[in-house]
Each structure stands twice: as C-alpha cells, then as structure tokens.
C-alpha cells in the first residue's frame, strides 16, 4: 500500500487523500495516516512543483559538474559533499561510480553565474582536484515530466 501511495504521489503530489483512497480502493483516513508516516519516516522528503524556468524569462541556466576529490581519512566523501550541497545554487549532489567522484547539478541565471561559482567556490575547495562543467542546452524531461510539447492525442479517428 505504501509503495502504491508513493508511486501516485511521485506522479502527482497534488492528488488529495480522497483521490488516492479512491484510486487504491482504500479508506481516506488510512491513506492520511500512511502519508503522515511516510513523511515522518523520511520516505517523503518534500513536495514541490516541477517548474520549467526557461519559460519564465529565459534567465535560467543549469550545468552538470563532474568533480574529482581526494577523500579524507575517516570521512570519505561526506565532508566535501556536505560542503558542496550547502550552496543554494546546487540542486543535487551525487557520489558516482566511474571516472569521477561527485556529480553536482548547479543552476543560475547566466552562464557567467555558473562559471564564477565553479571557479570561485567549487574549484577552490581543498580536496577538489578537478572540475568539468557541462552546460545543459535543452531540458526534455525532468522528474518524469515532459518539458517539450507533447504529441497530440491522435486517437478519435474512430469511435467505437
């Protein structure tokens, strides 16, 4: 049941408890309780809109930055990851397998913003040995939501 609730909320966080209850053939109070627990247990970390910022006034740039670091004895990557994630420009931080260590998604208003942020903040962190910045050119899909205009519903040629 909890898994089903999570799947629905991950699809659309605006579904009401009553709607979820209807869809899952459950009691609305039980759904309410389950959601509270999911929030308390930290399985649900937040609810937010999927925004297509580019539509606002064009002043939106994001970049994926690959970072190599020297892990600290006893702390591993935790310390540097925590430092990086504390910047408000940073949208996500992942520890990666493969040729680099941290994958950081950064957003800003201009290319310059991001370039400065990488040069002045990220690259200067002690344990960071190198950074590679990839600017995002176009966002097609984010958090399962399609950002490009959808194909029209081409059904309805035939009603049976």
């Amino acid at each position, binding site marked *: 049941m909890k898994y089903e609730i999570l799947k629905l909320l991950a699809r659309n966080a605006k579904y009401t408890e009553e709607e979820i209850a209807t*869809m899952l053939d459950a009691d609305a109070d039980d759904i309410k309780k389950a959601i509270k627990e999911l929030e308390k247990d930290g399985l649900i970390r937040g609810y937010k809109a999927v925004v297509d910022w580019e539509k606002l006034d064009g002043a939106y740039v994001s970049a994926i930055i690959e970072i190599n670091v020297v892990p600290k004895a006893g702390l591993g990557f935790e310390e540097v990851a925590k430092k990086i994630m504390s910047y408000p420009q940073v949208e996500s931080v992942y520890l990666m397998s493969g040729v680099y260590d941290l994958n950081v998604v950064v957003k800003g208003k201009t290319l310059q913003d991001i370039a400065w942020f990488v040069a002045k903040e990220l690259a200067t962190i002690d344990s960071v040995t190198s950074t590679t910045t990839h600017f995002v050119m176009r966002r097609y899909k984010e958090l399962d939501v399609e950002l490009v205009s959808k194909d029209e519903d081409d*059904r*309805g040629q035939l*009603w*049976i």
Partner: protein
Amino acid sequence: MIDYSKVINTTVKEIKPSGIRKFFDIAATMEDVISLGVGEPDFQTPWQIRKAGINSLERGRTKYTSNKGYNKLLEEISKYMERKFNLKYSPEDEMLVTVGGSEAIDACIRAIVGSGDEVIIPQPSYVCYEPVTRLAGGVPVIINTKAENDFKVTPEELRAAITNRTKVLILPYPCNPTGAIMEREDIEKLYEVLKDTNIIVLSDEIYAELTFSGKPHVSPASVEGMRERTVTINGFSKAFSMTGWRLGFACGPKEILKQIIKIHQFAIMCAPTTSQYAAIEALRSCDDEVEAMVKEYNMRRRMIVNGFNKLGLVCREPKGAFYAFPCIKSTGMTSEEFCEKLLYSKRVAVVPGTAFGDSGEGFVRASYCYSVEHIKEALRRIGEFLDEIN
C-alpha cells in the same frame, strides 16, 4: 445516367451508420473538447512489441504468411489460450489469425448464418453484430439486458429468445459499453439452456485481459460442455494497446474453423505480416506490461465510477473493459439530449447509450482510456453541467 439508388444492395442501403459517428463529427469541429469518447487505449504499444515489428521489417519479412497465420504466432496463441484461459486449441486446425477481432466476428457469422437464420445479440453491446448478421442474410434477435442484472444475459432471457431458426448466440463479455462480465456460474446457467441445441456461441473476448473483479476472466469455452459449441474471438488491440496493428484471432472446433478459414482465405488472404511478428513478442514477453496497464485502468475506473456516483449519476461497477456506463435518467433527458447538451455547453464528449442498442437509453458511455487528470477535468465539467440544468 446510372441510377445509383438501384445499384446498391438493399440490405447494405438499409444499414444505418453508427450512431457514434454523429458525436464524433460535432466534437471534431470544436476546440478545447475533453473527450471520454474513444474506445482505444491511450498507452502506446509496449516498446518491445514495436521493436519486434521493426526488426521483422529490417530482416525483410514482408511476404504473405499462410492463410491461417504465421505458424510461430499460432503456436504462441495456443500457449497463451492455455496459460490464461485454460483452453487447449491446436495450431493445426482450430485457430485462425485475423485482421482484428472484427474480421473474426464477420467471418464467423458468415460461416454459420444463412438466409433467415437468427442470431441472438445481447444489447447494449458493440455495434457490429447486428449489421454483420444482416449482411449475411441473417435476422438479429435482440436481448435487452438489464441494469438490475448487471447487464448479463439471464437463462430466462436466452430461453425466450431461442427459436428453431436460432443459429448463433453472441456473448460480448467483458462488455463494451456496459463493462459487464459473465462469471462461471452465469455461463453454466446458459449452458443448461444451450446444451440440447445446435446453437453456436460466438464469444467476443477482446477485453478478456481487462477485468477488475480480482478473479481472472472466465472464457465460456472453458466451462464444461461449452467448448464444442463455442468460437472464441480475441485479439491484440485492447490488451496490448495494438489497435492500429489490426490483429485478432478465432479459436474453436475444427469443423467450424475450417469454414471460417475459407472465407478468410478468399476475402483477406492473410493478416498483416509485420503485425504477426510483433504479436509473437506480445504473447512471449509482455505479461508485466499488460499487468501494469490493467492496474492503471483500475485506478482510473475507480476514479470515474466514484466521480459519477458522487455527482448523482448512478454508475454500477463496471467489472471489465474500459468504460463506465452511468445512468442519466435522473436528469430527465434522453441519452442523446444529454450527450448533445453536454458537448455544446461544457465541451465534454461522451457517447449516448442508444448507440449500442435501444436498451442503452438512459445511459451514456464514458471511456476511461485517459489520464486521471483528464478524467478529473471531465468530471468537473459534467458537475457544472448538472448544476446548471438543475
């Protein structure tokens, strides 16, 4: 000058075009229409099925297959029928791959029904049985199934409809548009009526994968005594979201299939080859995809049924297919009036129950082959409509 009124076959001329068409034509001219009209899945054909079709084209598999279908597909259908419905049919002489379930229905009726023979058709139901019967020279005998019986055919209704000219009983379950299903005991009761007759059951099970009662679909042929008198028709359109591929099949006693295959051989030759290659993949590897789609339909079904009932339009639980069939009698309107006014004033398209037979009066068909958000918006507009007419 040719007098075309004398050219056309009278039987054909007298067939009315489908009642759904009118609403489609009106809706097509309007902007911002929220439709609950279509009877096909919104899901795309699962990718591995499309890929299999593409691969077959890349390998140049573009020739005819044998009349009855590509043998590998027939074998897969045979396995599928056993796995899903506990039915054994031989790929050798008991099955045929057709151009959609529709061709199978047509060929089956033509193989059995001659001039003046009667075909019992429960309604409300899919629109093809009556015209196809007439085209074969047969006489449709309608059973008007009732909401209080959950739109099932009862043994009493069946007994009353049988005459010494009856050749075929259509069993269109799970039912478009009512969502009704026939359970094992319902079929057993019909068998009691049929057992001493030569009546053949044409069981149209195109929605067999889409049932929501928790129990799997019971194929009439799997009920004791029924196999020898049943032609089972199914297909890929609804279960695998493959409407445009036009692929279905018929299974039944070899004595009947032999004749159906003859009609198919001369009218069609063989079903589309690309579709047949794709369908093999559907039967081999798509159980999970089908399950996921059924789960999704079920959530939408609960949403739409709950929505109609909350709005005061009594909607029985549709246990199969993907339609809700709410009663609109409380509005005092006929089905057509309701649909027309709703379309013009709120731009919501649903289909009048009367498109599926006179007994559909007082009901409308609302498809839930749409996203939950789409269904919510449609219900919101219908709510506004009901407020305004009250």
